[in-house]
């Protein structure tokens, strides 16, 4: 029996994943220098690759995909936040402004007030509060205001309707005619959220509903907004 013939039993066990780690490494060392055994293993592969086809087909519950995609979107959201924080840190700006809003806890925020510069007034003499105007009716009795202090904004919202698991609210800062992505947040009850990014020179702040994790550009017309300039 040739050396290759002796290895064929090992290769079948290798293809089935039935070798110990040491045996597997020994086979892989042999394969690296043996074309004949590599060809045999390559020939054998379809028999193993098709074994899963022999099992009874079952349909995974829809919740598996939902949970999986939620994790994927959470990963992307975290990566975006990390990248934004990094850029902000590099620029020496806004590093301390962003307060991530945990989905489910808060309530939120937003403000937007197309009520151009509608000054409401605040308890802090250095802050201004703008009433946010509803631009599209997505919920009854929703209200929002934007408090601005030293170019930092905090959105206060009341009765903003809750969104499905695949959506977040997102704030946008309008500057020179462009919409810059800002904070994303979920809403469970009334609350407030910090607006990510400086409002210095901003023309307005707007709110949209976006796919979970937020978007780089608005995917719908704002439903609330406020002009600041």
């Amino acid at each position: 029996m040739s050396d290759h013939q002796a290895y064929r039993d090992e290769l079948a066990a290798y293809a089935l994943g039935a070798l110990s780690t040491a045996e597997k490494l020994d086979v892989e060392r042999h394969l690296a220098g043996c074309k004949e055994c590599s060809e045999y293993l390559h020939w054998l592969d379809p028999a193993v690759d098709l074994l899963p086809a022999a099992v009874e087909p079952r349909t995974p519950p829809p919740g598996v995909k939902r949970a999986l995609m939620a994790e994927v979107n959470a990963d992307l959201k975290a990566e975006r936040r990390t990248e934004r924080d990094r850029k902000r840190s590099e620029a020496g700006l806004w590093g301390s402004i962003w307060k991530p809003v945990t989905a489910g806890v808060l309530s939120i925020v937003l403000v937007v007030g197309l009520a151009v510069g509608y000054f409401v007034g605040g308890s802090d003499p250095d802050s201004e509060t703008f009433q946010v105007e509803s631009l599209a009716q997505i919920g009854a009795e929703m209200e929002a205001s934007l408090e601005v202090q030293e170019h930092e904004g905090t959105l206060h919202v009341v009765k903003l309707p809750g969104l499905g698991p695949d959506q977040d609210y997102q704030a946008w800062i309008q500057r020179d005619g462009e919409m810059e992505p800002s904070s994303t947040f979920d809403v469970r009850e009334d609350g407030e959220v910090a607006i990510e990014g400086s409002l210095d020179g901003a023309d307005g702040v707007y709110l949209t509903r976006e796919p979970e994790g937020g978007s780089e550009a608005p995917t719908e017309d704002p439903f609330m907004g406020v002009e600041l300039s």
Partner: protein
Amino acid sequence: MVLVERKDPAAFEILYDRHGGAAYSLAYRIVGGPEAAEDVVQESFLSIWRSGARFDAARGSVRSWTLGVVRNRSIDALRRQSGKAPKLDFDDDATLEAQPSEELTDSEAIRRDTARRVRGALRELPDEQSEVIGLAYFGGFSHSEIAEMLSMPLGTVKGRMRLGLEKVRLLLAEGMGINNSSEALP
């Protein structure tokens, strides 16, 4: 897979839509229950997403690679459980045939046909060969564990694995026209 590697969620969703069913079926078969199978499928696909997908097209199809990841995770899950014996029969035709064919898409129909052929090939094997293949692939047992379990020499177990796989390979080549430079044993 290039798009998945670039962290494109739409591409990843397509990957799941195409292979999630087979992944869940395989995991269910190995771990033996729906909840554990759901966990395995989620862990497997997340590892693919988070690892940046170390898929090598030269070493096989996306489906084979994905199911390889699922199989390894399933075996790990099985080993975490105590005293779980794998189900070894391949007789699932009754379940398959009960499903209305008009609801199948072309690709599903091809997969069902493939499944029938694979099960047919496995049924052609002597019991002692299909047993060691099932214990190794679906049970995650090493050849030495199988030898101890079945009280037989290690060489016999390995020989049965080889003879069984070669026979399945030849039967599949006959029935499915697998083109791999030569259908004969190299």
